[in-house]
């Protein structure tokens, strides 16, 4: 369930819209080598507050990751990107992004023209590609996404622009694994997996 009610404006470059601040004890101090791409590494300390985790989910793993790689504005990368860290895209990428653990954030200035697969995905910029998140997807108010979204939980801020299909997965399904090779299981069979909106109180349609 999304606990965040108000967005905290990030202040550091590369930081993303923050969820409630994580405690420092959640973070592993040993740094993982940055991804093998031309990125800028961001110190772990400021990132701790930017990448708060939700409890008892894949985010626990993500929270242990201290390394954030940033594709800075003005940088354009062609080719697939994979790794085991957080990734902030402020520039432009043309190639699939796959993170086994960690969070992909496409900043306001960021542009991704490919699929993104990661436990957590936050979009503030422009994406033309499918989003597959094991845990959650957030589309910020300035986001512009063209493609399908496959995730367990989704948060869409007012103002987000989205063209595509939303499908929800349930834990343990084939599509829910990081590989995502299976076919998606929609929330139809398991509505409890979907985040319950504050407003949806209507009874189900008659059958």
């Amino acid at each position, binding site marked *: 369930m999304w606990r965040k009610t108000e967005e905290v404006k990030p202040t550091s470059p590369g930081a993303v819209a923050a969820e409630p601040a994580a405690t420092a004890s959640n973070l592993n101090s040993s740094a993982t080598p940055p991804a093998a791409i031309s990125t800028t590494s961001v110190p772990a300390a400021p990132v701790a507050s930017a990448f708060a985790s939700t409890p008892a989910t894949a985010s626990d793993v993500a929270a242990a990751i201290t390394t954030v790689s940033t594709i800075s504005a003005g940088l354009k990368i062609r080719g697939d990107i994979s790794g085991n860290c957080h990734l902030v895209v402020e520039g432009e990428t043309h190639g699939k992004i796959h993170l086994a653990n960690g969070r992909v954030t496409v900043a306001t200035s960021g542009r991704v023209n490919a699929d993104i697969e990661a436990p957590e995905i936050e979009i503030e910029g422009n994406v033309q590609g499918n989003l597959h998140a094991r845990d959650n997807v957030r589309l910020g108010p300035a986001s512009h996404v063209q493609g399908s979204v496959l995730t367990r939980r989704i948060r869409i801020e007012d103002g987000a622009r989205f063209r595509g299909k939303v499908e929800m997965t349930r834990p343990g399904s084939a599509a829910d694994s990081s590989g995502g090779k299976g076919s998606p299981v929609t929330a*139809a069979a398991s*509505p409890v997996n*979907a985040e319950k909106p504050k407003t*949806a109180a209507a009874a*189900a349609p008659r059958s």
Partner: protein
Amino acid sequence: MDWTAKNRLGSTATARAPVKPGPEAATAASTNIRVSNGLKEFLWLLSDERQGKILDLGAVFQSTVMFFIEKGFRLSTEDLLRSWKEFLHAEEETLRSAAVGDENGRVSQGMLAGKFLDTALQYPEDHFHGVLAWDLFDYLDAELLPRVMERIYTVMRPGGAVLASFHSRAPERFNRYKVVDSQTLELVPTPTLAVHARVFQNREILDIFGKFRSSKTFVGRDQVREALLLK
């Protein structure tokens, strides 16, 4: 699918049923809430579809997405009006940047509409069980509207339903629509995205949906008409 064929025993939802906004509506500001008997009927028509596919042609909202997903539908979203306006803007920019006297880039409205639909509403045939189009058709250009209707008809499954709204007079402001519950919409005032093109008479509404086999119209207190049509 046909409302005349469906068994309605036990149902209290009729086109002329007294308006009873959903429970959530009571807590919301009444000026931004709209009772939608059309939506209620739309959901009833699709209630037999397991994992029915719905296409929302308006702006994406969390509440709308979750409403349909929790009911077991698969929802696709395409903000057609915004896409059209952005397309026109891009075309204008292209024309402006063209050399003076270069007439090659000039195209008719019909050609623009065709070019736009080369990239918009790209879905397989007979794909969707339902299409939602609030504040869309009476904002579209005359050249684009029939082409859009043709495309919508194509991507809908036989028996599928379209729910569309039409103003009876020029609206004071431009709104987007959030689904609050199964018969309540929240109007979200939005900076004017497009000028209201025209007011359709009921006969004209039936004409633009000429290929559809059945229709039903609901008139709200705000004089907005909801048309529900079956393929």
